[in-house]
């Protein structure tokens, strides 16, 4: 009943929230999907060096854009869209459909993950609801248009495979999600100790190699050059925001890799041996989102951690308070808060609200670490 009501609400948001509006990513995704479609229709493979690291998501969105082009409505230039006309509404419905689809897929996968870990239907439903009715997720998906939901679903699928010990598929889906949005690559070294036996490690490695081999073939077929691919970080400089703040003002030492690698050490040295995959994935991504600079670590990217935190809170109900505070501060963060532009003294509140959000992320990271520590440490 709740899920159906929220599905209806979300569908309403799809229709009402304009494409290409201020503070939204829909316009960018739509334009890129259109460009990829044109390349494919011209008989060429989209090149990684042209479309950058999000080529995967853009390729997935291209068929949806093609669907819109064959609908019996006007197809104006994307730069000249007039809001709330049949053209834009149909474009919104088609281009945002993947969000709703993968939102529901995420819900289903999350239910399965929690049920498998806690063996409790009640907790599984609770965890699922914290994802599906969470206003933060609602805002980021249906107002902002974070297509991150696609790799998130694939990543949760990977976790599902881990829980059923299907190591080959675990490897494939972890790497596929990473190829779609990079962030799951951070979790990869955290997952390796999960495989205790040699055959499972081999299966995982072979599964991981498969999508990489496919990408190499695609790069070869699209006549990309290595130099052009290596130049992507310079071309898409916002990627560098994920490296995070400069530690102690030093030029080359950046906070994100320091935090993630130190977290890896903490896991290897101090964690219980039977730590579960959800906690491992959560701490690695929390460390990343804590280390990234304000842009890279802004709330949009906190969406990656959101379903994992839903699973975490369902597994340990005692942490509900920190879960609620974390998402409250996330919603209030300057880069999310939909009412922020009308706040009377934004500059005064800016650092306070951002600081509160970062503090909650750090606290959650600390709590997850403490709850997994071996007693004999």
């Amino acid at each position: 009943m709740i899920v159906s009501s929220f599905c209806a609400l979300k569908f309403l948001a799809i229709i009402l929230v304009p494409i290409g509006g201020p503070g939204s990513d829909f316009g960018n995704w739509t334009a890129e999907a259109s460009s990829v479609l044109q390349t494919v229709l011209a008989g060429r493979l989209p090149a990684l060096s042209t479309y950058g690291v999000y080529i995967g998501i853009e390729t997935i969105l291209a068929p949806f854009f093609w669907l819109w082009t064959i609908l019996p409505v006007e197809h104006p230039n994307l730069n000249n869209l007039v809001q709330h006309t049949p053209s834009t509404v149909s474009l919104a419905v088609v281009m945002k459909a993947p969000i709703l689809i993968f939102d529901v897929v995420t819900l289903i996968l999350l239910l399965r993950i929690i049920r498998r870990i806690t063996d409790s239907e009640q907790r599984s439903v609770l965890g699922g609801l914290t994802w599906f009715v969470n206003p933060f997720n609602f805002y980021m998906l249906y107002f902002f248009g974070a297509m991150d939901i696609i790799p998130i679903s694939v990543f949760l699928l990977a976790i599902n495979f881990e829980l059923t010990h299907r190591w080959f598929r675990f490897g494939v889906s972890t790497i596929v999600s990473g190829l779609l949005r990079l962030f799951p690559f951070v979790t990869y070294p955290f997952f390796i100790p999960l495989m205790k036996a040699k055959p499972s490690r081999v299966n995982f490695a072979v599964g991981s190699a498969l999508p990489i081999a496919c990408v190499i073939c695609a790069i070869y077929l699209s006549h990309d050059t290595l130099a052009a691919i290596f130049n992507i970080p310079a071309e898409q400089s916002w990627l560098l925001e994920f490296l995070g703040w400069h530690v102690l003002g030093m030029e080359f030492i950046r906070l994100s890799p320091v935090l993630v690698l130190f977290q890896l050490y903490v896991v290897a040295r101090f964690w219980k041996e039977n730590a579960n995959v959800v906690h491992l994935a959560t701490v690695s991504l929390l460390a990343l989102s804590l280390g990234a600079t304000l842009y890279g670590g802004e709330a949009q990217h906190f969406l990656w951690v959101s379903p994992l935190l839903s699973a975490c809170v369902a597994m340990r109900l005692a942490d509900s308070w920190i879960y609620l505070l974390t998402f409250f501060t996330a919603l209030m963060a300057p880069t999310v808060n939909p009412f922020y532009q009308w706040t009377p003294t934004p500059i005064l509140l800016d650092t306070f609200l951002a600081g509160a959000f970062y503090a909650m992320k750090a606290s959650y990271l600390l709590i997850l670490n403490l709850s997994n520590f071996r007693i004999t440490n």
Partner: protein
Amino acid sequence: MLLLFSIFIRNRNAFLILVAAAAALKLVLSAVEPASEDLGNIITLVASGHAPIGPWIALYPPLYNQTTANINQLQSWTLAVPLGSAELSLLFRLPVFLFDLATLITLFYVGRKMKTSQEGRLMALIWFLNPFSFMGVELSALPDIVCVFLVTLSLLLLISERPLLSAATLGLGAFIKLFPIFLLPPLLVYMHLNGARAKPLLSAFLLGALGFSGYLAWVLPYGTTYLAKPTPVTQLVPFVGGIPNTVNIVTFGMFAFYCLLFIFVKKAEPLPIFLLTLIVYYLLAVPGPQYLIWLLPLIAVDLAFADRLKILVVAILLASAFLEWFLASSAFLTPSGYSLLMFPMGGENVPSYSVALGNFLDSDLVGIIILPLVSSATFAFLLAYAAEQLRPWFHGSQT
């Protein structure tokens, strides 16, 4: 491989043969290797006549008592093509090599004092066969090896219950290149915890302070420039300069660390507190890979008693520091351009692979992605190693 290595540790003669072979190789490479950027900088410093050189002049015999004409000749020495200049190349590196050997011997005695000769041999080999120390000592000819030796000697004296001699050695180290002075507070804490009275404590403090004054005495005649500007022979004094009315992070960090040391360490053993002090100082003030050489003998001592995870952390740390050094530092360059680990790549007529390497090192990919990732990895694994040193503090025993 491990079995083979264990022979060199168990058998004294096998150990000596291995050391002799490694020493011979180091000497041969010292003779034929081009001069490093650091050597070039030292020659330039001497030539300028307006920079402190202090006690260092004795470390590089070819620089001693040079006339202007000779200095000009040295500066024009085509350092990338040392053939025909083997004697000169060796003369520049022989004293440095001797300190390398002295550090090896000191480490052997540290190990023997702490446990048995086998541990001593293991520590000595971890130091002497380490590519990182070979790169930092013989190939780069970094003068820091003198202080590294003195710090190791200071540790040996301390575990031999000779704290005043240890303090004097630290003072001598501080006279030469400052950083050993940061080990004086832990030494005093150690003495205090071992029941030392006020007089020996004061004496130890004065010996260290004397060394520090000596350092200032040969640096300050050139003004405060060389307190805030590093050269191969002088060291940045991290407490000087900075933005007025702001907290100096190194001052804050070191003071806070010393206070925590005093609060938490109840049963002092010299190695963990020395090692942790240098790690904290390194992380706060000078996180450049070449300065890891300061820690390396102490790390060698620590590794002899380490578990697998700690060994793995150190192995990754040294590997990433080595890579960072390669990617970032001019220590891997010869004056004529790029070289691969300082092996000359063609002198005047630079071959295409050398040009390709140069282009790669200068590319955006290295500058904005690879180097930050590698540098951050070095920093993170040193943090992890610091955590490894801290662990015993919370267990009531230290090894």
